[in-house]
């Protein structure tokens, strides 16, 4: 259609109500076709009430139901639906960036080994680990309702942390009463733990500032030490999605509806199942924010222990926390009218432009910070949302590099020890809980994140602010 924009016409699969739009370079788009991810973009376009287009961001790859990198908005006034598969199992999985006042060369380099291994000890990680906060059932219900306000009420974290989270750290429409006992049982021991798989924590250095004004608003400068962490709603979110996927699958069966991929099962907005799912999903999102909030506390403690100064003195402030697996009710323009839509982002990040009323005052003039982790050992980026993104992608952009290789293939390319040596040869200290599985997340298993963010900028979905490089990796 135009540079970085590819159209998937109606009719590509039967029943498409809108076209598909893939934002990508030619190489990425070709790969997405081969990967069958474009077929998934077309499948999403069959959902009832879907408006404008089924979108995919440049980090698109094969998912289940929705592609990873998929964005779709449905209109409740036009028989729109919500699909738990369009959010995914790790509800509100997301990324946050913590900045510091430390200069890498002057204050950071000499401490990095000690720092990474201290983080490795203080950040609970791996499967089924016990989190940093012991919770009663009533406590979990409060986390589900209050998000980051719960740990704040226990004296964990700083008040300004909440302001720099998406939604101020809490979705007010959360309904803990719609979260199952099983989900609470799975989640209760895990609050404040990183998890496994592609979840990580990295010590990074700001390598290049591209947009001085936005970087200044975020408190970022070249040579600065930062920490990026990626985690989600742990077993509580996984079980919540499982519970509701079962319900919507049964609902589809009872209504005699067949979808192109059973994982696309949905409930009509306004239906009891949809309302309960939304309330439970928002509650799980609050759990995810509180989880990352507690991990931030572990980061601050670790820096204090290693550098012998208070976290405030070290300037360890939260830049922003934003999810990339979520569905939310947002106002957008469709056919010239402002409408409340249910925007699904599955492996995609919200990217509100400057002036949006939901942004904290610090960022209202520059747009919403978008935190984009690269693959392990490669650059990460800080972007900002654009006004243009509102009309191009329901204010959405990419969420990371995007996988290019399966886990089984990735493990065959390089042995764990070889990968560790290769990372350390590039000056990256690694603390992994599962060395044998490290290769699953190797850099070569992912697309080039720089090309992904360039494609986002080229398509007008977000703008680059700064590039960061890793100096320490703590893997789940």
């Amino acid at each position, binding site marked *: 259609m135009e540079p970085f924009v590819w159209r998937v016409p109606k009719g590509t699969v039967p029943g498409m109500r809108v076209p598909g739009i893939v934002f990508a370079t030619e190489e990425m788009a070709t790969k997405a076709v081969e990967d069958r*991810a474009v077929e998934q973009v077309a499948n999403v376009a069959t959902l009832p009430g879907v408006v404008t287009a089924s979108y995919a961001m440049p980090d698109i790859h094969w998912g289940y*139901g929705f592609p990873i990198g998929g964005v779709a908005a449905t209109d409740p006034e036009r028989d729109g639906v919500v699909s738990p598969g369009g959010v995914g199992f790790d509800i509100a999985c997301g990324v946050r960036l913590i900045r510091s006042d430390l200069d890498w060369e002057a204050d950071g380099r000499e401490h990095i080994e000690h720092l990474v291994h201290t983080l490795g000890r203080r950040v609970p990680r791996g*499967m089924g680990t016990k989190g940093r906060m012991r919770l009663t059932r009533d406590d979990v219900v409060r986390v589900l309702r209050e998000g980051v306000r719960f740990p704040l009420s226990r004296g964990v974290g700083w008040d300004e942390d909440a302001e720099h989270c998406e939604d101020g750290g809490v979705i007010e429409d959360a309904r803990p009463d719609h979260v199952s006992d*099983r989900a609470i049982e799975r989640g209760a021991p895990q609050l404040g733990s990183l998890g496994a798989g592609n979840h990580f924590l990295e010590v990074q250095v700001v390598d290049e500032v591209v947009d001085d004004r936005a970087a200044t608003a975020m408190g970022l400068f070249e040579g600065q030490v930062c920490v990026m962490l990626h985690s989600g709603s742990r*077993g509580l979110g996984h079980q919540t999605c*499982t519970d509701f996927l079962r319900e919507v*699958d049964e609902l589809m069966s009872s209504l005699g509806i067949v979808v192109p991929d059973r994982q696309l099962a949905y409930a009509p907005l306004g239906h009891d199942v949809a309302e309960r799912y939304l309330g439970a999903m928002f509650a799980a999102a609050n759990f995810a924010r509180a989880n990352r909030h507690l991990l931030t506390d572990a980061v601050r403690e670790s820096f204090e222990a290693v550098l012998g100064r208070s976290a405030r003195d070290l300037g360890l402030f939260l830049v922003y926390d934003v999810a990339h697996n979520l569905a939310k009710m947002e106002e957008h323009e469709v056919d010239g009218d402002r409408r409340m839509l249910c925007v699904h982002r599955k492996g995609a990040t919200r990217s509100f432009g400057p002036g949006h009323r939901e942004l904290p005052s610090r960022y209202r003039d520059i747009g919403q910070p978008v935190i984009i982790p690269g693959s392990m050992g490669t650059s990460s980026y800080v972007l900002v949302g654009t006004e243009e993104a509102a009309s191009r992608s329901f204010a959405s952009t990419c969420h990371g590099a995007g996988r290019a290789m*399966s886990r*089984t293939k990735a493990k065959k390319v390089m042995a764990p020890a070889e990968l560790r040596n290769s990372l350390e040869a590039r000056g990256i200290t690694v603390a992994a809980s599962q060395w044998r*599985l490290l290769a699953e997340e190797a850099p070569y298993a992912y697309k080039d994140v720089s090309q992904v963010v360039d494609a986002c900028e080229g398509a007008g979905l977000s703008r680059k602010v700064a590039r960061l490089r890793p100096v320490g990796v703590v893997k789940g």
Partner: protein
Amino acid sequence: MTGRYEVLEHTADVGLRLTGDSPEEILEAAAEGLADLQGAWFPGQGQDVPLEVSAADLPGLLVRWVDEVLYLLESRDAVLGGVSVRQVDGGRAVGAVRLAARGDREPESMGIKAATLHRVRFERGPDGAWSADVYLDV
């Protein structure tokens, strides 16, 4: 148990292809495959825990079975010592899993979150053998 599993490639996640002489063997192979990917397969250890799941159809039953085993492993912080499926009758499966406390073991786990309905199948072939596919979210 003569049911078998092999790992299916997926860009982001992972799948299991299951084969066996009966639907019971398919579910047994699914539990073993899941536990193996989670680094939690320790044959012979533990105590039997009865397990019963139901669904409207066989593919749905497979997804629920895997989800149930995953839930037990995680909520009980356990490893899997064995699995026995006594009967699959329409949309209902009755059996038992053997669970042992994880203890000090540090399983090298892929970090599976749930079974998905994506491309799920569970069917008997013309030769009478059973096969199934299930994809797991990582």
